[in-house]
């Protein structure tokens, strides 16, 4: 990734400077993560990544959350894609290997499968997510055809809550913030480390998705500890 590709490259915060949380930006970041973890990259998207067009996200993660190591790892994985003859297909096969076929030895992105280590699909975590979605007036789009505890769905839901948090005022804002914090702590941070651990054991051609999972885990952890 070329630093110069970032429109924000020249606008770094000073070291140690404490920033107020911009929930709207966090929402946007969650939507990006939901997208890239929800489905395989197509040719056009892959080209954009290889052209450095994801730099705003990377820069933000480095600058606002101090995730230098995680971003560097993902950046490195992207750089190494040039060594593959059919990078899109190989990434798609990695995606499959990790997320789509083997729900026991792979790294399936469903919270229910990490309940007690041996849960099945549509477990209690999925039921809790469905209840959350229902109470908030949402449902998973029919064509997505994934349970509510799919990581991408959960991140997308988180994005909507962060956007609402950004727009909330007064006591509702604090209530919303606490709800988001609880969601992060109990519904995401509770199993993401296990997912990352599983992904590390899966043999992949590229480090792109393992690096992305590690980044998502670190991000959720940091966001759950963000200042009000």
């Amino acid at each position, binding site marked *: 990734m070329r630093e110069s590709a970032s429109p924000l490259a020249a606008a770094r915060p000073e070291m140690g400077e404490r920033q107020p949380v911009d929930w709207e930006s966090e929402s946007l970041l969650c939507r990006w993560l939901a997208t890239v973890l929800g489905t395989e990259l197509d040719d056009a998207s892959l080209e954009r990544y290889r052209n450095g067009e994801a730099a705003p996200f990377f820069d933000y993660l480095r600058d606002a959350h101090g995730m230098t190591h995680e971003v560097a790892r993902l950046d490195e994985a992207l750089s190494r894609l040039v060594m593959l003859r059919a990078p899109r297909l190989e990434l798609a096969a990695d995606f499959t290997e990790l997320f789509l*076929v083997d729900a026991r030895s792979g790294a399936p992105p469903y919270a229910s499968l990490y309940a007690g280590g041996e849960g099945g*699909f549509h477990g209690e975590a999925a039921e809790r997510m469905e209840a959350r979605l229902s109470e908030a007036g949402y449902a998973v789009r029919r064509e997505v055809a994934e349970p509510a505890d799919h990581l991408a769905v959960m991140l997308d839901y988180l994005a*909507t809550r962060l956007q609402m948090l950004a727009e909330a005022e007064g006591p509702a804002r604090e209530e919303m913030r606490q709800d988001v914090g609880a969601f992060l702590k109990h519904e995401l941070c509770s199993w993401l480390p296990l997912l990352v651990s599983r992904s590390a054991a899966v043999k992949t051609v590229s480090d792109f998705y393992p690096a992305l999972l590690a980044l998502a885990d670190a991000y959720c952890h940091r966001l759950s500890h963000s200042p009000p």
Partner: protein
Amino acid sequence: MTISRRSFLKGAMAGSAASLIGPGLLTSTAAAGVTEQGVWKTAGSHWGAMNALVKGGKVAEVKPFGADQYPTEMLKGIKGLIYSPSRIRYPMVRLEWLKNRHNGDRTTRGDNRFVRLTWDAALDLFHEELERIQTEYGPWALYAGATGWRQTGQVHSCGNHMQRAVAMHGHFVKKVGDYSTGAGQVVLPYVLGSTEVYSQGTSWPLILENSKTVVLWGNDPYKNLQVGWNCETHESYAYLEQLKAKVEEGSIRVISVDPVRTKTQNYLGCEQLYINPMTDVAFMLGMAHTLYNEALHNQEFIDAYALGFDDFIAYVQGDADDGVAKTPEWAEEICGVPAERIREFARLLAADRTQLLFGWAIQRQQHGEQPYWMGAVLATMLGQIGLPGGGISYGHHYSSIGVPSSGASAPGAFPRNVDAGKTPEHDNTDFQGAASTIPVARWIDCLLNPGETIQYNGAEVTFPDIHMCVFSGCNPWHHHQDRNRMKKAFQKLETVVTIDYSWNATCRFSDLVLPACTQFERNDIDIYGSYSNRGVLAMHKLVDPLFHSRSDFDIFTDLCRRFGRDEEYRQGLDEMGWVKKLYDECREANKSFSPAPGGDQSTSSMPEFAQFWKEGYVDFGPGENWVRHADFRQAPEVNALGTPSGFIEVSSRKIARYGYDDCRGYPTWMEKAERSHGGPNSDRYPLWLQSVHPDKRLHSQLCESEELRATYAVQGREPIYMSPQDASERGIQDGDLVRVYNDRGQLLAGAVVSDDFPPGVVRIQEGAWYGPVGPEIGALDTYGDPNTLTLDLGTSKLAQAPSANTCIVEMERFEGEVPEVTAFGGPTMVEI
């Protein structure tokens, strides 16, 4: 200058990064709390009918159907089947095949990388391959003949859908026979005039009333009646309960002829007559010798109803070409039963009314035709065929055979064939001299030896050169023998397409994998009681198809759309249209039906479809008692059997004319290619491995249900049952991991030491999923599929059926690093 987080958002959205954010995955609905109390629905399965509580779009609870008084505990595996981590969630294609199609590397098939496809892309590929095979080769290059134990339901029966759709596109190689009764269903029409294995048998009440002795010959009905071809009613268990009471009071003597103390024996508390594995024919010949020489046989019956006895008895007496009299002493040396015990047993059966109940295991071995034929000869000598509680049955352990049939008409099914008057897109019927139909168990021979000609049932079969296979709801990587031979054969295939709902080994060895939904995710209708035909059951869709899975109906309709014949395929009806059509046709056919006396007369008129669908079930009432072959006994000239002569053929001139060295004109004893207890190769591999039908699965179905599997697996592996002596001699403790091996392969299993097993006999139930540690030939199977070790050999030139129970092995306590079980996941990447 410091970054403003507000400026980050603006910057990102203004730049091209925004295009890296896709559409949201959520949609707005009316806000609502989870207040749904759930709804109870009716569903059916091979394991019986059930009521399921569906709550929040999920199956929350499964209860046995009210009419089922003896539900199987396998129902506990239903939720685990639906929500199994092994589910196929998306259409998938093997990466190497996608890149290079049929020119790609096939050596890694079964252990390679896949990628996800959209349904459109997947069905396009499927169609393109069918086109390529038909145009580049011809119908001889496509095998879509294999069908298996599908999921239940008359509309969605997956074999019908696959074969109709593929047949509308072009002709293909089909199969004959099956893996359960391959030898029996070929030989018995020569002897008794029908397959017998799939025929209604004498009603249980008549057996209970009239039999003095019941012989269970290699037969474990208490285990096997848990499942049925259609929705199982479990009515047979009421009769087994009565039989148990009669054994206790001493009014019926039940003897289990078996090397193993079976589940049925333990339930009934009955006697066992131990016999060495695979030696039943020798034992029965010794009995025939006793019956004949002590004049205990029924010569009058033989004279009136049978042909060819003289040729057979000459063989028994030692007057045939082998010159060996089949005395009990001769038999004892082979079967391990003392000669005097053989005589006593023969006398016992001749003394009073005796019902012989044969299981299927003894014909799933080399020369499997012989014990079935010999059983029929014994029954003929006893002279009780056609009497209530006498004669022989080959099916009382299967699908409610023996439960009186209601007499009503059952619902039909979605058609398997192309509609009358229609022709396929590719109407080429030139198989270039090769057979268009092959014996099912010889298909791996066919892949390995195209062009070779074999003998089969009086004809010659030349193997076609198959390049592509299609499987749907059929798991040959469970039911065929010798996995390592299969690995070699699959490397010859250009394309394999599999439609299924879980990542079993057949999927892993395929190129294109399409996810079907389970039977609990679509609407259907089923027969309640395969042979009793007790009623009609509604199979309500419990939940929507999980992930991206689809019903077989939808999958193959969309395949046919690619060649413009989807409307013809579904005959203009949708799923519920078909459910209603089958019900309405059944209702029309039953207009004149009256329940048997004692049945609910109000059921004489089936309700309108809407009422049936709401109530979930129509009961036809119990049937009337019936005696197999009673009509033949009463008037053999009028009600002739389906044999060439119309009589029981103790010797078959027709089979004799075939001139087969492994199936002569009358039943004979022949040594096996390998046999324990002093037989060939028993010095190297002294243990007989029997691979019986499982106790807690239907073949391989439900093995993926983790909750159920946890109730029987040992250290996560399939159990291997063994005697205390065999365990002790090898330093094996109950619960140990064991490596089981022979020249064909090796597997890991978990030791269960049991007094039910004699020395020299071990059991691994078939249906255990295959999961090798790697793609190489001979790789250790990590879960315990017995067909890693079994012999892939035709029973004889007559039936060419599976010989799975001709298998000897050795075992040892497993030492070293224990590999993870790979049987229940998808394919994994290997170094190329």
